[in-house]
């Protein structure tokens, strides 16, 4: 029996995640991942207008805002057999790309970087040497010795104030930090620059969807009308702003994010390129259609599965096959009507909550029994990792040149073999590399949108199935997308113009779920096993691997309890 350590709350993530790990001789021998918060969105959706579902599901997550809205409108469109106009598809793609760029940059700098960057060490950096370092890896203009010197003074002043704010009680000085002071100072500068930058790129959402977070979507297309001769619609001015935002975003990604990623990775590649691989199966639903969502072959991110890290074969995945994707609850705080051992396809999914965990306050979860609010999804009984690494691997194994090009570029630059991808660092690198691709693609979509408008096509919505009277008495659908954190799908059953059942199987449910009825680990738990922990009091290593997945736990949990009290009120003025 080793030492049990608990990390709760896991910070710099979305949602409430708890990790319990057994450490023996300085290495993790077993791990338990638990989602500790539940809201019950699926039950709330029952009986509502399917056209409203996007707004409810969008509120599943405000970090990866948009992704559930997209999955939702696609699910309803799939059920009702609606094909949206090309411009609507392009605008949805642009919103998708915007989300990736913002989300991945924020993840890298604000959620993940402090696992690799020692802020305190930046105080002892030589600003001139920092400038030299920055200019040697990028042409980004903010790189003078004076710039870094001013920043360093500012951090010094901050530290001397004694109020360390978000930087208090970090793992500063931990032997696991490997960057020289100059690299730390450069990274801190970019932490602050990225914070300013991220609020700019989201303006693409504001133009098309009216606000961010939580921009508006629409079943049947997009809500923004195009009229180049009208101030109140998408016109040349609005479109020019989108173009400028996308170009500037690409500049930041190419000149700051990618060079920083490779620079930091070069200091950690020898160990973290071999730690944290976890399970060996990868799933991607794919996205970014270039010829309509129905044409899966046209997706920029291809759909498919890789088994046992065999990059020689891509296995197909079908969300409508009742035997492929199933959710299990044998280790989750739920019950199924016909027993807790069986798996259920989401169209027949059930949600009966039963908390059997310890009464709070508690020291440890009872990990021998049920221990999480996350269900456990499986593909044909197999645990799958989803996310940027899965997408890049499926793209690579599908033989797509753009994927091969960026992967080879990074592997050569870091001088590591392809197997280094199956690691904590590989996951973090894949996220950056796909951002590079997405930034490029966003400009392609933008130019296509301009070309369509120029050619006289301004349609953004198809109205023929808007009226519920036109719908069949019963329908079912599935809508798939790739959230920044991985494969996301919604399943719906519509009956008498209302939602009869609605199920979400989200990326962090695949990755962060508890073990299945056969005792097999999901991705987080598997990736932690074998990870060395130098100091159990300061488990920096656990955060590195968990953050490499970019957890999003509010997404992962969606259940309910029938006992909730509710007083109905209508707000009037």
């Amino acid at each position, binding site marked *: 029996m080793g030492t049990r350590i608990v990390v709760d709350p896991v910070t710099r993530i979305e949602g409430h995640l708890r990790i319990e790990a057994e450490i023996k001789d300085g290495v993790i021998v077993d791990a338990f991942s638990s989602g500790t918060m539940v809201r019950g969105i699926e039950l*709330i959706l029952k009986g509502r207008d399917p056209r409203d579902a996007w707004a409810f599901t969008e509120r599943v997550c405000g970090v990866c805002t948009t992704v559930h809205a997209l999955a939702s409108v696609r699910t309803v469109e799939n059920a009702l057999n609606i094909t949206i106009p090309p411009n609507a598809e392009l605008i949805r793609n642009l919103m998708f790309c915007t989300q990736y760029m913002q989300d991945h940059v924020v993840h890298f700098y604000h959620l993940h970087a402090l696992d690799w960057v020692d802020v305190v060490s930046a105080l002892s950096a030589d600003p001139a040497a920092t400038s030299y370092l920055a200019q040697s890896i990028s042409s980004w203009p903010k790189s003078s010795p004076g710039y870094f010197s001013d920043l360093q003074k500012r951090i010094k002043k901050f530290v001397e104030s004694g109020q360390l704010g978000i930087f208090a009680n970090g793992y500063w000085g931990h032997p696991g930090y490997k960057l020289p002071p100059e690299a730390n100072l450069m990274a801190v500068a970019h932490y602050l620059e990225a914070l300013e930058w991220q609020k700019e790129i989201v303006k693409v959402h504001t133009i098309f969807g009216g606000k961010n977070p939580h921009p508006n979507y629409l079943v049947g297309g997009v809500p923004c009308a195009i009229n180049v001769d009208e101030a109140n619609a998408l016109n040349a001015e609005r479109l020019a702003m989108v173009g400028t935002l996308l170009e500037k975003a690409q500049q930041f990604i190419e000149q700051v994010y990618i060079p920083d990623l490779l620079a930091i990775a070069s200091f950690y590649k020898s160990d973290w390129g071999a730690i944290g691989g976890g399970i060996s199966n990868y799933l991607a639903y794919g996205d970014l259609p270039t010829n309509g969502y129905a044409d899966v072959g046209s997706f920029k991110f291809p759909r498919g599965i890789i088994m046992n890290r065999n990059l020689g074969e891509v296995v197909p995945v079908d969300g409508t096959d009742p035997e492929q994707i199933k959710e299990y609850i044998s280790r989750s705080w739920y019950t199924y009507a016909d027993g807790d051992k069986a798996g259920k396809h989401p169209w027949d999914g059930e949600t009966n909550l039963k908390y059997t965990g310890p009464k709070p306050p508690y020291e440890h979860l009872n990990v021998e029994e049920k221990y999480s609010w996350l269900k456990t999804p499986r593909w044909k009984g197999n645990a799958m990792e989803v996310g940027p690494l899965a997408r890049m691997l499926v793209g690579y194994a599908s033989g797509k040149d753009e994927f091969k090009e960026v992967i080879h570029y990074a592997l050569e630059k870091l001088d590591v073999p392809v197997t280094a991808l199956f690691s904590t660092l590989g996951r973090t690198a894949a996220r950056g590399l796909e951002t590079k691709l997405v930034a490029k693609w966003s400009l392609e979509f933008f130019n296509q949108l301009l070309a369509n408008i120029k050619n006289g096509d301004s349609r953004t919505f198809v109205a023929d199935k808007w009226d519920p009277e036109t719908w069949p008495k019963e329908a079912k659908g599935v809508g798939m997308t790739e959230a920044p954190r991985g494969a996301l799908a919604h399943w719906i059953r519509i009956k008498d113009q209302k939602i009869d059942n609605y199920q979400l199987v989200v990326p962090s449910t695949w990755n962060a779920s508890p073990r299945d009825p056969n005792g097999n680990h999901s991705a987080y738990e598997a990736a932690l096993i074998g990870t060395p922990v130098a100091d159990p009091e300061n488990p920096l290593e656990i955060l590195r691997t968990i953050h490499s997945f970019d957890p999003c736990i509010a997404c992962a949990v969606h259940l309910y309890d029938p006992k909730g009290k509710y007083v109905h009120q209508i707000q009037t003025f």
Partner: protein
Amino acid sequence: MKKPTVYDEIKAAGYSRRDFMKFCGTMAAMLGLEASGVAQIARALETKSRIPVLWMHFQECTCCSESFIRSSHPIVADILLDKISLDYSETLMAAAGHQAEKSLRDTMEKYAGQYLLMVEGSIPLGNEGYCCIGGRSAEDILKEVAEGAKAIVAWGNCASAGCVQAADPNPTGATPIHKIIHGKPIISVQGCPPIAEVMAGVVVHLLTFERIPQLDALGRPKAFYSRRVHDTCYRRPNYDAGLFVQSFDDENAKRGYCLYKMGCRGPVTYNSCGVIKWNNGVSFPIQSGHPCIGCSEANFWDNGPFYKHLQSFPGFGIETTADDIGLGLGIATGVGIAAHAISTNIRKRRHINLGADNTNTENK
């Protein structure tokens, strides 16, 4: 050692006195202050050290934190990350687990009665196990952290009204914080999420004047929630003229006509979307062609379906057709304002009775 003031820090960050005054002017304008308010803000920021802030997450989606970091004027981002001392924020803090709990505890002890508590998310009263952090229930944590708070900010619809998880049938018993915490001033910064600049504006108000801003009947700052989206909407003339979008992407949509018939909740929603707009004034839902869904109102999720226009659901009180609704609304608005004013005064009295105003000023 003397703590640097906000102005010291701004100077150290390389901003000029002019930048600083411009920022103070922007904040004063947003808060609806007269010219003398600029000097007041400037003075406050020049002389005060950073207020410790504890930002708690319960049943939420983190959209409020995300919106907060979108605040547009560069100095605002600096103020909120550097000029307040954000001692606990699960989204941004470096520490995790025990170290994170230590940060929370340190501030609660060292700054008892002085820190600001900001809450993102609702509290599930259905079962303690529905939301636990560090093995403790959300309700338990909230009550403890609220005890020593100088004032509480309820971010967004979750903390203010329960938001989506409180929608029928509210499976987890999601409860807004004002139903759990009593005897402390609570500012409801409504919206799903609230507008970034509104969040920044409320923080600066607290920092500057050391008292809560004037609140409406529902605890929302009047500066940002006293006007209906409908009354500040640039498409309002179309409404008054009876020019309506009949279907998304129809000729009227392409001309930017009123979205009332598409289900717009602007007439029953109090927010600043039409004035401040979103993401540094780029647009707001109606400008981008989608009706307002009313996200800054309690229970807006159950006032649906969203695309059904207002007169046809109960509780709205307008029995008329869209063509002559302008007149009907005029009357209803008058009644609404009166009711609003009365309820606001009741709320204010309650604050006075609870000693809310005293609580705010005694810890200078």
